[in-house]
């Protein structure tokens, strides 16, 4: 919708230019979805436009993948098929598409919305948060006067719609390390509706060094990560105990997209499914339990009930 309080759009990537009343404009899909409603106390006055930043969207090196904050979700979705990664043995790439498909927003919105935008909005269900936290990505943040710092995405998000950015700071990029991309991964997600907003989203990783990393998102107000060294891999009971210890009840998110008690129980359930998939089922014949609506990827058919061709014969009209 229109942001009628905006007086100017300033093309810049320099945090020094930022002043109160400014917002960084990436894809604009979040800012423009809220507009500047009458009830807002201090409405925005300027948009600092990153549209002409010229930041590379995706740079692939042996060290991993550097994703520019202005990389669109559509570009991210296209990555696993691109020449840049197609010959690399990075099973972690399998997470990119299901995470994109976890957006409640459609593929059309992906043409505009950005990786940085999703991270900075910092909603519990932000799928790029899930992806980046799940792969131990590191965020690079630009500050005033050319300063710069890095922070793991896992710590970047500090609560519901809260992050560690100081006013005016700018998320520049995230780096997904090759070590995580080389891991075996597992993905689980539940929503209250088919293809709806994530209520629980868990990502598991069995790293090349044998360590096991479980990242809980959507169910909790911020990402929660459980790490187990190769020598210390959990069985079902140990994992459940670790989940219970790591996530106090009040950290489970409570909104229209899922009751906290459900999110908690589903977190335990999906955590165990992931543990079993990554740690137990080396036997190819044992198929791990998979809860949820679109993983592994398949065409979703919600319409199993079909109209027989002959309805009119069974129930003729009139007379």
């Amino acid at each position: 919708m229109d942001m009628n309080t905006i007086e100017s759009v300033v093309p810049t990537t320099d945090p020094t230019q930022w002043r109160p009343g400014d917002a960084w404009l990436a894809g604009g899909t979040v800012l423009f979805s809220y507009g500047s409603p009458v009830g807002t106390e201090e409405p925005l006055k300027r948009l600092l436009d990153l549209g002409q930043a010229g930041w590379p969207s995706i740079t692939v090196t042996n060290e991993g993948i550097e994703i520019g904050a202005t990389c669109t979700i559509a570009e991210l979705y296209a990555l696993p098929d691109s020449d840049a990664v197609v010959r690399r043995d990075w099973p972690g790439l399998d997470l990119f598409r299901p995470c994109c498909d976890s957006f409640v927003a459609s593929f059309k919105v992906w043409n505009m919305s950005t990786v940085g935008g999703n991270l900075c909005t910092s909603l519990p269900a932000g799928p790029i948060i899930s992806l980046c936290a799940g792969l131990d990505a590191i965020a690079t943040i630009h500050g005033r006067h050319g300063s710069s710092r890095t922070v793991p995405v896992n710590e970047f998000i500090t609560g519901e719609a809260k992050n560690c950015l100081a006013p005016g700071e700018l998320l520049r990029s995230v780096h997904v390390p090759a070590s995580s991309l080389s891991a075996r991964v597992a993905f689980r997600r539940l929503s209250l509706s088919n293809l709806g907003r994530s209520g629980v989203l868990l990502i598991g990783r069995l790293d090349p060094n044998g360590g096991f990393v479980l990242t809980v998102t959507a169910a909790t107000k911020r990402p929660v990560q459980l790490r187990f060294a190769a020598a210390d891999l959990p069985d079902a009971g140990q994992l459940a105990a670790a989940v219970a210890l790591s996530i106090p009840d009040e950290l489970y998110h409570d909104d229209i997209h899922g009751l906290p008690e459900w999110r908690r129980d589903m977190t335990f359930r999906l955590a165990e499914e992931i543990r079993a998939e990554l740690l137990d089922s080396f036997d190819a014949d044992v198929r791990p339990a998979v809860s949820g609506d679109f993983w592994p990827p398949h065409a979703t058919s919600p319409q199993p009930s079909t109209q027989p061709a002959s309805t009119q014969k069974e129930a003729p009209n009139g007379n």
Partner: protein
Amino acid sequence: MAIEINGTATEATPRPGQCLRTFLREQGNFGVKKGCDGGDCGACTVHVDGTPVHSCIYPAVRAEGHAVTTVEGLASGGELHPVQQQFLEQQGFQCGFCTAGMMMTAATFDDEQKANLPRNLKGNLCRCTGYRSIAEAVCGTGADGHKAHDAGAGRLGDDVPAPAGRAVVTGTARYTLDVPAEQLPGLLHLKLLRSPHAHARIVSIDTTAALRIPGVVAVFTHEDAPAQLFSTAQHELYTDDPDDTRVLDDVVRFIGQRVAAVVAESVGAAEAGARALRVEYEILDAVFSPHEALLPGAPAIHGDKDGEVARISRPFNNVVAEVHSELGDVDLGFAAADFIHENTYQTQRVQHVAMETHASIAWLEPAETPGEDRLVVRSSTQVPFLARRTLARIFDLPEDRVRVVAGRVGGGFGGKQEVLTEDLVAMAALKLRRPVQLEFTRTEQFTATTTRHPFTIKVKAGASRDGHLTALQLDVVTNTGAYGNHAPGVMFHGCGESLAVYNCANKKVDAQAVYTNTIPAGAFRGYGLSQMIFAIESAMDELAVGIGMDPLEFRLKNMVRPGDHMLSTNPEPEEDVFYGSYGLDQCVALVRDALERGAQRYRDAGLDELGPDWVTGVGSALSMIDTVPPRGHYAHTRLRLLPDGTFDAAVGTAEFGNGTTTVHAQLAATALSTTASNVAVRQSDTDLVEHDTGAFGSAGTVVAGQATLLAAQELALRIRAVAASLTGVPECVLEDGAVRCGDRTVPFAEVYDAARQQGVELATEGRWGGTPRSVAFNVHGFRVAVNTSTGELRILQSVQAADAGVVVNPRQCRGQVEGGIAQALGVALYEEVRVNDAGRVTTDILRQYHIPSFADVPRSEVYFAATNDEMGPLGAKSMSESPFNPVAPALANAIRNATGVRFTSLPISRDKIYLGLKDAAEPSAPAAELARS
């Protein structure tokens, strides 16, 4: 750098914070619609350099130097894009407000995307159709695999396409705000400051700073508003609703209520003006639940009013309306019962989410005599004539000085049976003598219009072992929110047909509609029935389980049959309701047979075993509805023969996807032996006909259609008479669009000429008053699978049988049924307008209020009973609200059958299913007791 729109570079440049949607509309591209303005619904989809985007969240400045294609640019020359052609052929729309966005999205699909519509259409919401017809339009195939649809001759029983179809698919259909700027010179925009408090007295409003803002023209407060109290609810008799509302009041009774209206040269300036208002409030005590509101000492929300005058039952107790009745003796009935079910059922607040938000424009039409100019209001309304009456009453104007018109309306569902914007623009236009427009945002829809009434229903029901209902006792409390619009009607209607459909000698009802300091409830498809039917049909299921009988068998034993009195709260049946036809028994049989076939299909396909976590079950529910609302529903039609031998029908009812326009044309065509395409229907303008109560209460076909049929039958007689005098053949008959007089066939055009020479105008009028009334029935059945470990619910089969009498347009009627099912699934599974402890609506955007998307709606099997109604036009009955009514209880009953757990409150979301099953599995838990009771 210029923005190119549909091949032409535009000279205009966007404002800094403007989104592409409004920029495109300002350039005249009215096909770009606002559904949510937040990127969720897709109605505004356009292409930028060929890529589909949601233009409402696309910064317009980013489009500079790029080429934008809107729906207006989709066709090349006069040739429709294949997707447009398919939407037209498959009639993949009802109100049509989402259609441009659907087509702009689908036009980019490859075969792989078409194969996964749940995923690829999740960014396009439709509130009318239930998506089946959209799937067929996108893929270009009908249900039966046929590409083109044979619409027949365009008479009774044919699948006549909507006359507006071509306009809808080309984006040229004009909805409320699709008025070119040059037609409204000097247009002003109105924005509202809304109350941040649930209950407060306005001490003062300082408008100084607001009036200083450039572009602000005026600020209106309670000091400017007429003193006349009225109800936003619109009924044939305004006395059906309490007079408890002012245009702008000095007391606010819910968060979101209008405080002041700022009128300015632009929306932005009006917003800035609203932001600059300084309001001092005296906070008053507030109550947020009916339970609190009924407690002694609770603040009386309308305690300042005289109950007699305002028609409020007990203002000091916050009771708007109530009914207390007992037929027979329920105590005796329970004593005779072998099994008694007692439970409390709860339904939630839900929002209509019509894709077009409330909006209106008012201006003055100059008259020759000074001081007699007319107020004209163009509004998104289901009730133009009643809106006119209400505006005349509020502003003390003679009715002939007010004209209300509606363009095509982007969905209604009862939400537009209210005056929520028209009074404000009328007040501003009358005072400022300039055109004034008000368009609600989607958030205003959620926080400050109306919702369905939440009901709390205590049921006690008893049955004998041989399967007879011995007693039915209901204690009902409805939450009408801060104002009583539709409160009496919804409560009474809710307690009507829901009980009357069962024979039971002992029925007791205590019902109250209660004020709270929350968003007002209003009219919504089903009008109280769906809430009561959820409770009663759940209870019937429990009784059947309790006595060990098949639930459908139990219903067959107890449901009314022709000859049975239909009784609810009055010992005498309604004097004008009859069994004009009866198809309930057929509906039950159709659903039962279909569910059995479905079970067989699943067995044959080997799908019975979903996995160890899954359980399956079936359930069903029935519903009855009177075909017309009580106490008068009037319609008037003017019909005339035109020189070219076609017909012009002027009718009152608005078209918002309900399909009545097609029905009018078909009924007239049938009586006149012509085709529907030869009957042009003009509508929804208070200048066209004398009166029309409006398109609500399922009255489109059976009342307005009846008036048109009567006019057409009269016109047919007169055409025959003229033809007889022309040819000298006494017995002339209408046949295939002409008059056959013996051997001679006289075309209608020739009849017209003959009549003109005789000085006769072949024009007739039809009137219908909505009485006597008949009854219509719906039965729904589900087969579901429930994942006991996650709460996930899958609908394996959905079946509805409808007794609509003679179906005038089967394709359209099926669409009404499918759309009703989809809306009801939203209510049953997802939707809830949440109000927090402070009385604030927290679900104020579509991302917080999930309406069914393509992925959520199963294909339903739809069957029609074979009946022919004695009262309806050519045997037809109503079928617009009622398909909604049996869906939620049928689903709850199927879940009960699958899991053994009774869910008593809506929505039955996956988290609640999981937690309910978990509770029931713990032996000591009270829920388990309930489940077994």
